[in-house]
């Protein structure tokens, strides 16, 4: 297992896009989505804080998340909550050609977030410390996770709650200085995959694993044999500032969607029927 971010085989995924002033980031996000079917975009909390909405603007941005937000009391937690929703809705708004405030973030039975009424796109959110990360895909499902590359994981008995037997053997065979970084990579891949399938930690991390970096990444059974096929794409990227992010994307095989705009997604037969009905009612 090597440091995350070394060359991997398999279908490409665009490099994570850093949110920059001036809106140019959204062009990259749209381009990645058209090319790869998936886009990853990240931002730093301190960069977003000056533009976080408040008052009516905040309530409009959060929509049904407003009541969840009111339950939060800690200022840092509140700001991160707002910033993550702002990043997500602006990124989704850019690719859907929609006003961010018109997008409604909803949650499935396991807490998995989705954009209500926009099933042409799947989303995933992650944050750690001041880093905020959003994943978008038109392929099928996506899960993303971010973590500090030097976060202490190896040792303290934690490995046996994270690793499969096969992964434990691989890690223990590595030079000691590389083990923690390799475990952080595995952790982010597991978090990303479990988010994509909507299970979170209900799917025990010791029940599925990943192989070494530097070769096509697949979900593995606890003994290291293949658990999934080519329908899943996994990538891990190092970010400046000492962070690692991973993405898990399930490709349902529908091909690339060139235009994800909200208006394009309207069913034409449905639009015709409504138009016809309105014409009859109003005599237009």
């Amino acid at each position, binding site marked *: 297992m090597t440091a995350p971010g070394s060359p991997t085989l398999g279908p490409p995924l665009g490099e994570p896009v850093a949110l920059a002033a001036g809106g140019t980031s959204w062009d990259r996000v749209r381009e990645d989505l058209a090319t790869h079917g998936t886009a990853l975009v990240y931002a730093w909390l301190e960069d977003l804080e000056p533009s976080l909405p408040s008052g009516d603007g905040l309530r409009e941005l959060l929509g049904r998340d407003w009541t969840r937000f009111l339950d939060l009391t800690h200022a840092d*937690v509140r700001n991160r909550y707002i910033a993550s929703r702002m990043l997500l809705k602006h990124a989704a708004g850019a690719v859907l050609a929609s006003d961010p405030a018109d997008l409604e973030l909803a949650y499935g039975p396991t807490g998995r977030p989705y954009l209500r009424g926009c099933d042409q796109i799947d989303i995933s959110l992650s944050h750690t410390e001041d880093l905020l990360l959003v994943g978008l895909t038109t392929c099928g499902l996506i899960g993303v996770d971010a973590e500090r590359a030097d976060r202490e994981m190896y040792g303290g008995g934690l490995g046996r709650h994270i690793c499969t037997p096969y992964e434990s053997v691989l890690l223990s065979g590595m030079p000691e200085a590389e083990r923690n970084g390799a475990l952080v990579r595995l952790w982010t891949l597991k978090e990303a995959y479990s988010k994509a399938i909507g299970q979170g930690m209900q799917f025990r991390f010791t029940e599925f694993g990943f192989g070494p970096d530097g070769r096509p990444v697949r979900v593995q059974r606890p003994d290291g044999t293949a658990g999934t096929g080519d329908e899943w794409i996994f990538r891990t990227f190092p970010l400046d500032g000492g962070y690692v992010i991973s993405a898990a994307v399930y490709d349902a095989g529908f091909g690339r969607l060139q235009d994800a705009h909200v208006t394009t997604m309207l069913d034409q037969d449905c639009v015709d029927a409504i138009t016809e009905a309105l014409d009859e009612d109003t005599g237009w």
Partner: protein
Amino acid sequence: MSLDNVDVFLRTVRDDLGLDLPDPSGADTALVDLPGWDSLNLLRLVALLEESGHRVPVHRLLEAQSLRDIHTLVKEYRR
């Protein structure tokens, strides 16, 4: 001191996980409202509890909404 005592439990969480718990309401604060709380800290807590003889199943811990909920499970699953 035993983790059965809620103050000892909270001190362990504060010291060993390095979390900044609000005082005195730390036990009842929602986990999602605790700065720094995340899934890795949950697993670190599982490992800590095991060391002190409390094998709490992860799926039960995932149902917890606050540290007091977790402490209730700690008492339930002591060896």
